């Protein structure tokens, strides 16, 4: 986002948003689209308010966020560890990399049936798939980051007689940090998506299940309220990570 956004542009941006909401208001009040599918903005807002203040939406949100965060942390840890291991051994890379490239396009949700067979329909099942799916961006980014360590730095490491562990810890990992952080940001997005999918399939408490139930009971305003919350969670998570990224990488040349 351009921090030097001129005031006029921001105002116009808000105006468009307001215009879209006005369009929504018109469409829902005039029933251009059936009320079953399109609730009014006020109904959505009131569902949101009552759900958060008196209902279970706050609890559901926290459940989903917890799932997303836990899965993401697990995935990042495993991804960085495995990635580092694969990256430092060029023979491991040669043998394993093609398989990694093959698995990369696989939709993580396709692992759900297998996970269900192993764990049953419960929270562990969801966590397994979240961790699996969210691991790939971090794993691949870590490998790429390690492999792209400046050859000159490797020579410096050789000249200083750095041990292998010291090289990984002091040079490989920090050098790969920009890639790893970008991978972790992508991983968070994946983690949220799979957490929601998991909740829908395994009837786990959370926003995913909430909006599915709302759809099944034709409660459109609750559905929309849930979608809005999910959008906010995704936006906030991404925004926070971006900030953390900038802070951690402030040594980068402008």
């Amino acid at each position, binding site marked *: 986002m351009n921090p030097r956004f001129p005031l006029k542009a921001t105002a116009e941006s808000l105006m468009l948003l307001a215009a879209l909401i006005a369009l929504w208001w018109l469409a829902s009040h005039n029933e251009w689209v059936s009320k079953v599918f399109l609730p009014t903005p006020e109904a959505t807002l009131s569902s949101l308010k009552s759900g958060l203040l008196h209902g279970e939406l706050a609890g559901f949100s926290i459940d989903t966020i917890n799932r997303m965060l836990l899965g993401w942390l697990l995935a990042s840890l495993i991804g960085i560890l495995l990635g580092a291991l694969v990256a430092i051994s060029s023979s491991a890379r040669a043998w394993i990399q093609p398989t990694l490239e093959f698995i990369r396009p696989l939709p993580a949700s396709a692992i759900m049936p297998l996970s269900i067979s192993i764990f049953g329909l419960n929270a562990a099942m969801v966590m397994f798939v979240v961790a699996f799916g969210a691991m790939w961006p971090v794993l691949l980014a870590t490998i790429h980051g390690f492999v792209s360590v400046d050859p000159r*730095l490797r020579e410096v490491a050789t000249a*200083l*007689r750095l041990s292998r562990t010291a090289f990984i810890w002091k040079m490989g990992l920090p050098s790969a940090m920009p890639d790893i952080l970008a991978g972790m940001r992508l991983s968070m997005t994946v983690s949220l998506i799979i957490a929601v999918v998991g909740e829908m399939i395994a009837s786990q408490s959370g926003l995913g299940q909430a909006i599915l139930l709302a759809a099944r009971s034709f409660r459109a305003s609750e559905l929309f309220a849930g979608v809005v919350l999910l959008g906010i969670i995704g936006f906030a998570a991404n925004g926070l990570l971006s900030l953390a990224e900038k802070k951690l990488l402030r040594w980068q040349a402008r």
Partner: protein
Amino acid sequence: MSILSFENVAIELGGRQILSPTSFTVNKGEFISIIGPSGCGKTTLLRAAAGFVTPSGGAVRRRGEVVAGPSREMAFVFQDYGRALLPWRTVEGNISLALEAASVPAGQRPERIRRVLETVNLAAHARKFPAQLSGGMQQRVQIARCLAQEPEILMMDEPFGALDAMTRESLQDGLLKLVRNSDLTVLFVTHDLEEAIYLGDRVIALRANPTPAQPSLAAMIDVSIPHPRDQLSTKEHPDFLRLRRELYQFLGHH
């Protein structure tokens, strides 16, 4: 007292002989400048001395022992300082790397870092990141890191080549002062003839495309100009002008 000896060192790369068998010795405390046109193998010779490259013939010996790989006694200063420093560490952190590699106890490090930073006049910038420093300052950080190793021999590969003339002169004088106050032995590769004579106790000129009739080692001349040297009067010294005339031909000018 001989500290480094080159015994018929020959280097082949990609099937071509870059360096024909070359022999000479370096005494403790000497400043050897190595000059030559592009492709004469001066950098490769330096890297062989540092242990990065194994000669295809002959050997480099340090204190009688064959140099089989890099060691902390021989510090190497690269030309591309930007790539040889860790961008995510401060100046202090970069110096510390050398101490960490040598397993210097953490308690001793701050003092040694401070001392070495004062030697290169960067004490005021200890907490800055490389990206915040000028080219000359970054190169001084690299030199400081090399000094922190407390090496016997300092190997420098065109260290001032990427800097502007004024910075270069300033660093040349800094280097001279540093070397005079220590017993460091220096091997200094450059394509700048005046720099080679200004800094060196001895100048070695290499030829490109060696043949049996015209081997790599074209000339080895002592620089009898007294110390201390300075940028103005030394360059007007009759010996300086004489050496410059003698060595000019070896840079590939005909």
